[in-house]
């Protein structure tokens, strides 16, 4: 015992244990934390993702013509920690299993994930507002009925008035 020879021979017979990547496939488990994907339709602009991101990879800003909010995520600043996804109420921000992040040096500032949330007008008073994602209703209510669906198109103020009536 305690001789390494047996193990060494066994390892030799087993052949290489490295993956042939990039010329072949490599091990990618389900649930790998890779590049971020953002879905503007499900986003309610709560900005929690921006708040929890340690590197400041995420920015949500109103565009110059005030027609909506622009979401930008710098892939190169992301540390793949998954906090944004964890705290996102609607899971509009997700980490995908795509780990291919190689890109040209000249593209490094353009290497971003972008999205645009276009303001909609309140169905009652026409104030521009962030559209309320259907996903949020699903989080807040067990069942989304017609009344709730109607409230979705009202701004917070009108919603309040409607609720108090």
């Amino acid at each position, binding site marked *: *015992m305690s001789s390494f020879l047996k193990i060494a021979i066994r390892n030799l017979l087993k052949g290489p244990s490295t993956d042939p990547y990039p010329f072949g496939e490599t091990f990618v*488990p389900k649930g790998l934390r890779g590049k971020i994907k953002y879905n503007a339709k499900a986003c309610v602009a709560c900005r929690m993702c921006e708040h929890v991101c340690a590197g400041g990879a995420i920015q949500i800003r109103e565009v110059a013509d005030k027609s909506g909010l622009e979401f930008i995520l710098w892939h190169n600043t992301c540390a793949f920690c998954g906090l944004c996804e*964890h705290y996102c109420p609607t899971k509009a921000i997700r980490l995908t299993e795509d780990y291919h992040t190689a890109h040209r040096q000249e593209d490094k500032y353009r290497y971003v994930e972008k999205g645009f949330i276009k303001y909609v007008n309140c169905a009652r008073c026409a104030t521009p507002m962030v559209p309320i994602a259907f996903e949020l209703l699903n989080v807040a209510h067990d069942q989304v009925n017609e009344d709730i669906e109607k409230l979705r198109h009202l701004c917070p103020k009108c919603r309040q008035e409607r609720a108090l009536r």
Partner: protein
Amino acid sequence: MSTYTIPVGPLHVALEEPMYFRVQVEGETIVGLDITAGHVHRGMEFLVMRRNIYQNITLTERLCSLCSNNHPFTYCMALEKIAGIEIPERAEYLRVIADEIKRIASNLFNAAMLAHIIGFDSLFMHVMEIREIVQDTKETIYGNRMDLAANCIGGVKYDLSDEKIKYLMKQIDRLKKPLEEIIDIYINNKFVRARTEGVGILPKEEAIRYGVVGPVARGSGIDYDVRVKSPYAAYDKIKFNVHVENGCDVRARAIVRLREIQEAINIIEQCLKKLPNGPTCIDYLPEIPAGEAVAKSEAPRGELIYYLRTNGTDMPERLKWRVPTYMNWEALNVMMPGNKVSDIPLIISSIDPCISCTER
């Protein structure tokens, strides 16, 4: 015989981390030692005061790569103490599982380094390949090979489905046999023994005097483990042994680390069996009042202490941590003298130093 001083480092002494030694030698034998630290100061203590409580989960995880899970873990425990948050029971078990998986990988890495330093590279490769089982496990369960990102305030942000529990059981089962094989080699192989036995002696009294922690303490006969002395998370519900060796040398420290891997496997198995159902995290955003707290845990390298002070805002007022290497590297002053120059890297690696968290 002439006495002279040789500089060792700052680059590539044992690991690719900067540490600088001025070693006084007489012929081949070390007679004195100066340790110069501070080559990788990253200003982390300042950075944490510029980040909110959530961002610091991610930031503290990047203090150290090998103990990475212990930092956010201990940081979250300190926060939860201040805010009086009770975390769900399932989360306590999941935190222990994450921590023990990291311990296995970390200790295997150090064992592999030992083999590499003594020139036994086929053993090095073999141990790294065993570690690969753990790396794949981490990647599958957490999504990343090093920084698990398992912790969040009030619990964990991963869960184990039945399928994943089965997978984890299978993976740790795969570790058992190869582990026994290599433990036999580290203990009995005559080449390994010739290089590690009687090298870098830290007698028990000196170990106590220097207040060393972790496997360095336990390799010098000190029965001290935070998981037992002041249990946290689910450790008080788990039965496990603290392995202590009396060799006081490089070999003893290596054996302690290897035995701790077996113990970690035992702990994970118990956790998986006992894993209660329920939520994995609190379901509200906590408010953190002003206050201060100390939290500690047993990192792979030893006792890790966090001190946190908050002021009612969501930015910490002060966060300070004492890492195991800070206690352990001073003991090199005892371990080194009397040994040969060729043993310098071996002795340094035997304290499993982590410079990045010590100098942060």
